[in-house]
């Protein structure tokens, strides 16, 4: 169990006294396996994400990190094992308003226009009752979410008119609008320019400081590095490393370094960590 490795400040007190039961972990993944067409993509993955922790799931393309994330949300069914969300098995989990999912990109669909505000407001679908109009609090949450990603001035533009980075911010705002306490983000930095990356990192840092659980699927840590005390590194469908984030060294550690190349050999300081950057 990796709980000891992380030392997340938020739950330190609870962990110090093992006889006092804390809240159930946000995610408990036990022996999870997923196969597509009988080809195993994920096998025997076991780990917990305690409530309030910020965890990065890293790994090269094809390592199963996206599949793991999808399985954790019930988007992809498990072929074996179990996933629990806040103490309830996925099948019986009902508090979906606690979960905010940020997909890798905005799906274009058939191209029917939708405004930024419409998309962001749709993030409240799990917490709003049918046939009820939006309350003042609902609308305020949407406005706050737009402010948080600095898109308030584009609220009435069609999302298809935005740049890739702006669309990414719309997706994050959509997750924020439901006011969840558990976030799952799939490559939130992909295609986002460096100025916006820092703004996004700050938003995620605020969520984390507020006690939210944040699970990030990432190619590389980038500007999120200071936030992440624990990384789960996947390789070939298994967990290859679970603990403090692998530290880049040498030229790769320089600020602003763009991970475009494979490392020449295993990092000598972290022999258990596989390559996490992708050519």
């Amino acid at each position: 169990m990796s709980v000891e490795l992380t030392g997340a400040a938020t739950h330190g007190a609870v962990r110090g006294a093992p006889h006092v039961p804390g809240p159930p972990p946000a995610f408990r993944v036990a022996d999870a396996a997923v196969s597509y067409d009988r080809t195993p993509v994920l096998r025997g993955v076991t780990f917990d994400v305690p409530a309030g922790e910020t965890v990065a799931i890293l790994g090269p393309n094809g390592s199963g990190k996206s599949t793991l994330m999808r399985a954790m949300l019930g988007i992809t069914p498990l072929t074996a094992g179990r996933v629990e969300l806040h103490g309830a098995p996925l099948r019986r989990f009902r508090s979906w308003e606690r979960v905010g999912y940020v997909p890798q990109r905005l799906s274009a669909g058939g191209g029917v226009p939708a405004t930024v505000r419409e998309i962001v407001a749709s993030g409240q679908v799990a917490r709003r009752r049918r046939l009820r109009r939006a309350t003042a609090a609902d609308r305020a949450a949407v406005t706050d979410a737009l402010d948080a990603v600095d898109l308030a001035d584009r609220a009435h533009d069609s999302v298809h008119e935005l740049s890739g980075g702006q669309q990414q911010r719309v997706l994050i705002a959509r997750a924020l609008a439901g006011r969840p306490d558990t976030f799952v983000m799939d490559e939130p930095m992909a295609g986002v320019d460096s100025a916006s990356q820092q703004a996004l990192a700050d938003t995620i840092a605020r969520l984390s400081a507020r006690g939210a659980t944040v699970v990030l699927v990432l190619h590389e840590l980038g500007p999120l590095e200071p936030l992440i005390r624990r990384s789960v590194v996947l390789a070939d469908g298994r967990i290859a490393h679970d603990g403090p984030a692998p530290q880049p060294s040498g030229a790769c550690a320089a600020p602003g370094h763009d991970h475009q190349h494979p490392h020449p050999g295993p990092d000598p300081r972290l022999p258990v960590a596989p390559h996490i950057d992708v050519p």
Partner: protein
Amino acid sequence: MIEMLQPDFMRRALVAAALVGLVAPVIGTFLVQRRLALLGDGIGHVALTGVALGFLTNTAPVFTALIVSAAGAVLIELVRVRARTSGDVALALLFYGGIAGGVLLIGLAPGASTATLTAYLFGSVSTVDVQDVYVVAGLAVLVLGVIGYFGRELFVVCQDEDVARAHGLPVRFLSLVIAVTAALTVVLAMRVVGVLLVSALMVVPVAAAQQLARSFRVTIGLAMAIGVVAALGGLSTAYYVDVAPGSAIVLLALAVFGAAVAAGYAVRALRARRRGERGGGRGATVGTMPQSERGSVSI
């Protein structure tokens, strides 16, 4: 203009056509967003099997068409999910099965022939009776009710099924809601514009509206308006010029689409210039291809 409203059949036809023009684009918007624009047409072909079944069993054809096309709509969702076929292949299977079933069954029905099906293929708005108008009105209320009730969830499902699942929405059930509602709409529109042109009224007004609108809500509203205008305009044209009403309605809707494409270019160019003058902010990318993934990133 008033003279057109004198004959009873014309008044009934206008009411029925307006209702179809109002309702078809509503469900059509969700189908277009789901990339199932041709679903209506596929279901229409299956409805033919239902019509033939009605003649064969001496039951009201609209009723059997309703049952069979709803079953077809459920089937297409199952094929899409279970049989590893993409949506368009599933649709093709439905097209061929529906038309083959219809022709086969109508041949077995005594006193009916493929000519009997023609009225349903192309619609026969002039023979719409009072009961038809009530049926159409009832179905219209039902369709609008379903969309009003599930609208928010359907929006999310049509936008991104994965996101819908991560919100805990019953994606499969909602997909069936869309498919069955589309089936209801097809049957409701069948008598007016005919099976072959039903899908057009579900899709063409939406395609026109999305050239001009920036929001989903406005797209639906505009598509409904275009649908009603096309239905009433096409029917009036058919009355005065003596052409097939279904064709006149659809061609008018297509003309509106053409005008909307041109207007859309102008509107976007204007918006981009205004944004440029405001300073900052990049101009909107102009595109009329609704399928193109503007602003998406490749990594």
